[in-house]
């Protein structure tokens, strides 16, 4: 039993190690020392309070988009639209946050978060309805919705919400809806956002593993015909899965604006983090707790790679190589599983 429980962690871990090994060959090929490079990277990601804060700030929205995609996967839905839902969550959430300055923080923050989540949920539900009632595949419809959301976001920050000159941006959100800062080093501010994200991961874990709703949604994902036979409403489940997934992505969008300077909606804010959610869900094997660690991995690779580029003069594209190999190995889990089994079998024979 113990072995089975550890196994899910083993595959991503081994994948990361293999990826580092392969990337070190590339580093050697460009004439650098991989051990030095990795040391710089680790220091750059975890070496001090500032680095740590930086990594955690980067990690926070990734936990949420990872959860968004992972939750969808668990219920058999491939929500590729976290990007668009994140944008909608950030847009609507910050519109609320700009205008609730008269409320105390304990009201204005939840209000902004809730509206951000609602916006993401509604945006995702469009794809949910289309799938449930017309059979339109969610991959297609969420990609389309991504583009619509992106254009709405650009329109809003360059038109109705635009302020100042230069890069399009919205006004700053009200003071009372900024998240409390727990660590401030130089320009880096770390807010309580990470605790909210981890709490959400735990809630999602409970929802998936302990609740009847989780039982139903996962059941629909595994076998909709059997779920229907078991009295589960398929259409409702599909829409609900999409809505929950979208709410998580929407939260990722707004939490970054509430927690991280400049506290403004700048339109194209998501920077691919919605798509990173797919990577993270895969590496975290769609398990909420695994997703926290996967998000930490990706975030630390990103912050570490910047340090590597500056200090060791190694292009941070290396990180894309590492990330690519990790995803490849996790997705092609059988390769790693076979390697592990081979070792195990040899171990047993001896």
């Amino acid at each position, binding site marked *: 039993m113990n072995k089975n429980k550890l196994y899910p962690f083993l595959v991503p871990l081994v994948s990361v190690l293999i990826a580092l090994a392969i990337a070190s060959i590339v580093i050697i090929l460009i004439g650098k020392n991989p051990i030095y490079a990795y040391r710089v990277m680790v220091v750059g990601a975890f070496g001090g309070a500032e680095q740590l804060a930086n990594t955690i700030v980067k990690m926070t929205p990734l936990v949420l988009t990872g959860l968004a995609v992972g939750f969808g996967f668990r219920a058999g839905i491939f929500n590729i639209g976290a990007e668009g839902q994140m944008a909608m969550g950030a847009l609507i959430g910050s519109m609320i946050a700009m205008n609730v300055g008269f409320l105390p923080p304990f009201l204005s923050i939840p209000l902004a978060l809730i509206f951000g989540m609602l916006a993401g949920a509604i945006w995702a539900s469009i794809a949910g309805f289309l799938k449930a009632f017309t059979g339109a595949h969610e991959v297609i419809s969420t990609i389309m919705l991504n583009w619509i959301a992106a254009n709405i976001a650009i329109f809003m920050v360059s038109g109705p919400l635009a302020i100042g000159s230069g890069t399009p941006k919205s006004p700053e959100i009200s003071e009372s809806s900024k998240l409390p800062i727990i660590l401030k080093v130089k320009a880096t501010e770390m807010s309580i956002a990470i605790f909210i994200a981890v709490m959400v991961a735990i809630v999602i874990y409970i929802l998936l593993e*302990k*609740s*009847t*709703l989780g*039982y*139903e949604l*996962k*059941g629909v994902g*595994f*076998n909709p*015909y*059997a*779920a*229907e*036979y*078991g*009295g*589960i*409403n398929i259409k409702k489940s599909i829409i609900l899965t999409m809505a929950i997934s979208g709410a998580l992505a929407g939260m990722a969008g707004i939490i970054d604006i509430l927690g991280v300077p400049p506290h403004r909606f700048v339109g194209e804010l998501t920077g691919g983090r919605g798509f990173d959610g797919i990577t993270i869900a895969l590496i975290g094997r769609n398990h909420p707790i695994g997703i926290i660690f996967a998000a930490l991995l990706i975030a630390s690779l990103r912050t570490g790679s910047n340090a590597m580029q500056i200090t060791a003069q190694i292009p941070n594209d290396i990180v894309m190589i590492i990330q690519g190999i990790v995803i490849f190995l996790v997705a092609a889990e059988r390769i790693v599983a076979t390697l592990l089994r081979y070792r195990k079998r040899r171990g047993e024979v001896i």
Partner: protein
Amino acid sequence: MTKDTETNNQTNQSQYAVEMKGIVKRFPSVVANDHVDFNVKKGEIHALVGENGAGKTTLMNQLYGLYTPDEGSIHINGEKVSFKGPKDAIDKGIGMVHQHFMLVDNQTIAENVVLGSEPKSFSMFFNRAKSKSLVKELSDKYKLLVDVDANIEDISVGMQQRVEILKILYRGADILIFDEPTAVLTPQETDELFEVLGLLQKQGKTIIFITHKLNEVMSITQRVTVMRLGKVTGSVNTSETNPKELAEMMVGREVLLRVEKEPAKPKEKVLEVDNLKVRDNRNLLTVKGISLDVRKGEILGIAGVAGNGQSELIEAITGLRKAEAGKIKLSGEDLTDASPLEVRLKGLNHIPEDRLRRGLITDYPVFYNMILGKHESKPFSEEGFLNHDAIKKYAKNLTEKFDVRPNNPETLVGTLSGGNQQKVIVARELDNQPRKPKVAVISQPTRGLDIGAIEFIHKTIISMRDEGIGILLVSMELDEIFSLSHRIIVMYEGEIMGEVTPDRISREEIGLMMAGHKKAEVLPESGDNNE
């Protein structure tokens, strides 16, 4: 018979079409064939029987070149062979008719037969005329009469099977393997198949016949090999054995071939269906006004060839399909167009015909499958949260009571054998928790199961009946319908051909009704005295 072993020693090997010696085939978790010796004489019809998982199919797949044995050797007509794939086996004159036909629906019979080794003109183009004449020649030679121009989708299942046989004859097969060929046939079609097998035998073909059905073994084979748990428990001449002995060799203990039951004591009507009309997925009316009622404490059997509206009828009753017209009532309450959940909550349980598609979530462990459809009821959940302790305890109880193997509720259902998967469904649907069912709609409860499991499931169904539950039973197995039902209705093309009682009708007469003859045509003398 000892004579076999004597001749075996006499190096007169050419007497055997097939000799498999000391075959061992291991899979990661199981030894599927454990030193199996299997010999088939030239020109005989040889039955290979055994429970599911006994290793029959594995053995035949090695003979057909799909697997390579880990140990042992295969000899065809005295010559040692080692097959790298089915093509090698086909070249040695071995052909296999699979249980599930592998035909192209929208092509003609002639095209299907030659597919893969088509006659060509200018060694480039498909020669349609030649393929037609070749197939016609073949069908005349073996008296397998078919219309070579007909499309597969327009011909009956029995006819499709003939096409499969023609396919392997076209490729020059002398040793024909049939994997449970009668599972999909009506009694009449089965009789026709047996005639064909007899003809093929007269033409000098050797036939290996895999089956579960012992009456078939008795009626057409000369010898039988019985397998159990990967080993051969015996090879005997059919004339020197009987079904009871064979069943014991298969199961390893004494088996009741007949279902022991008291006469049913029907009480009040519990399920009433009135003039129900249902459309199928293609939007065709496949249930054309069916009326029936099931009483408490009785089993109403629905006989019929698959695809005559039974599936749609059952789906409409259980809420999985909208009814076009008509009424469904459970204890007087209207259930027409209720959702599957409402139907369940009113006390109607359902064993679906397709266990993997409908009945189980194979990626869930046994304990989650045991509460499918019950998951919203106490004690399995409360206030939206699952009670894992109660669920696992319940599942443990049921797996023990129904002897699900392995007896571990944490096992993923997808890894269980078919029989054990079916036991999970039967356990769940015929259990009184969290509410005692009033009606159980049971479809194909024993499809693909072995004798031991069938015996157990039949006993369970009878004991449910005796507890006063009304049971609607749909089965393609006429024997099952006969041995369990109190009354039988026969469905053909969405209509009821008539209602009969099992002790007043023969299999042949029911077979005629299944082929579309009304009861009045089949039993003219009985008139309307079916009450």
